[in-house]
């Protein structure tokens, strides 16, 4: 029976292809299987088949994709591949067009984690230069975690022990399950917008990769990234790393460690206060000692300038002057005495008594006491005294005569 309408092969093939391409599952899926028939063309494209016990799918990885992969499989290996399913029209087959591939042992969550990490890192969400400093003395801290359980208890215990001055605002959320990421995002936003919190701790206790999964959610990562307040992450155990850890301003290995990082330790603060106190006492003591010695120096200087000292020094000077003056006087005296002696000697040589030695004598009238220089002074019978060099004798004038020629002499 002839049909009035028919399709060409290409039309059917295109129709099937369109059906594949509008299917959301087929356009974005992870497939696990074992690799066989692995080959690489001269152009660099990679072809293989993924199979399990019951089925197989042809796979293609273009050169541009293959070059980006850190890992390329070989036959017999179990892998997980990501890509889309479409039709290869020429052969009428469907194929998996792969854009990422990893060994299957790592699990699909790991692959998603690596893919998101790579993407956000490339976007700059982990950049060290956008990490913010934490407030050194936070007055108020926001905590995003479950309101029940050991985590909030540990955090409050640590905060209370280290820095009870801080005020804590808990923004309670689920920390695992499908609802968790949205709640964590809302909590971070609410703490930013509606509280006085100065920093936020995002915390969760240890768990499996699946249990920690909310913290590998892109929405959570972006909420931490756009938080005005710095975020400290404390998720899982020391060995767990989540995307939230990479975006956070500070990553703490555990929730308790996050609380320790968030606030200063009052023990250390008290020590510092004590040190400052001791320093103040020491500085003040030093100042006072310094002023004291300065005062003493001034007193000594004052002592040197006081009139008493001046008087003492004047006294000494007078003493010295007196001594030198009397010495000088004695000297002068001796000099004068010497000079006097000289004069005396000269006087003696001029004295009339000296002529007596040479045989002259001096005659005195005994009654008048006059020295007889003229015959007229005496008359016969007058007592006279004659002085010679070694004594004197008395005599009486017998007569007097005046030489005739006396005037002619």
């Amino acid at each position: 029976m002839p049909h009035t309408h028919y399709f060409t092969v290409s039309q059917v093939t295109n129709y099937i292809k369109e059906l594949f391409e509008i299917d959301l599952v087929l356009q974005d899926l992870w497939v696990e299987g074992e690799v066989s028939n692995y080959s690489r063309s001269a152009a660099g494209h990679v072809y293989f088949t993924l199979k399990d016990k019951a089925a197989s799918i042809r796979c293609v990885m273009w050169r541009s994709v293959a070059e980006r992969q850190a890992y390329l499989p070989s036959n017999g290996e179990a892998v997980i591949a990501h890509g889309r399913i479409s039709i290869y029209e020429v052969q009428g087959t469907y194929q998996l067009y792969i854009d990422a591939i990893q060994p299957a042992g790592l699990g699909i969550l790991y692959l998603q984690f690596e893919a998101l990490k790579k993407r956000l890192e490339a976007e700059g969400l982990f950049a060290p230069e956008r990490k913010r400093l934490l407030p050194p003395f936070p007055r108020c801290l926001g905590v995003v975690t479950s309101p029940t359980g050991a985590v909030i208890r540990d955090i409050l215990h640590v905060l209370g022990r280290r820095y009870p001055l801080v005020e804590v605002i808990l923004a309670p959320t689920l920390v695992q399950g499908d609802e968790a990421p949205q709640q964590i995002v809302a909590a971070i936003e609410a703490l930013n917008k509606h509280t006085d919190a100065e920093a936020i701790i995002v915390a969760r206790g240890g768990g499996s990769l699946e249990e920690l999964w909310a913290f590998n959610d892109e929405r959570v990562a972006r909420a931490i990234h756009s938080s005005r307040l710095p975020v400290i992450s404390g998720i899982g155990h020391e060995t767990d790393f989540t995307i939230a850890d990479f975006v956070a301003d500070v990553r703490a290995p555990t929730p308790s460690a996050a609380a320790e990082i968030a606030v200063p330790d009052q023990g250390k603060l008290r020590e510092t206060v004590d040190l400052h106190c001791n320093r103040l006492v020491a500085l003040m003591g030093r100042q006072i000692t310094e002023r004291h010695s300065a005062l003493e120096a001034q007193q000594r200087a004052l002592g040197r300038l006081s009139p008493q000292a001046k008087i003492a020094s004047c006294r000494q000077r007078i003493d010295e002057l007196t001594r030198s003056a009397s010495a000088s006087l004695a000297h002068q005296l001796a000099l004068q005495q010497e000079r006097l002696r000289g004069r005396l000697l000269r006087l003696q040589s001029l004295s009339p008594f000296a002529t007596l030695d040479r045989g002259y004598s001096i005659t005195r009238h005994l009654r008048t006491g006059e020295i007889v220089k003229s015959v007229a002074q005496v008359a016969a019978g007058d007592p006279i005294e004659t002085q010679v060099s070694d004594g004197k004798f008395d005599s009486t004038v017998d007569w007097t005569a005046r030489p005739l020629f006396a005037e002619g002499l």
Partner: protein
Amino acid sequence: MSEVEKLSFEEAFKELEGTVHRLEGGGLTLDESIALFERGMRLAKHCGQKLDEAELKVSQLVSSDRGGYETIPFEEKEVSG
């Protein structure tokens, strides 16, 4: 300068640090030094008191009926283990 008793721990702590630095810097009259010293000692005492008296305050953020948020006291629930 505000009254020491009214300062927060952080303010008192920072001022104490500054006071030590100023005294270390020197160039002060004796009266200034003594005033700084006395204030520094009061600041130190105040810091200690603030820590002694502090008690961790914990509240909980909840969404209110009007679509906003409000804080209520946080009661830690007993958890086994």
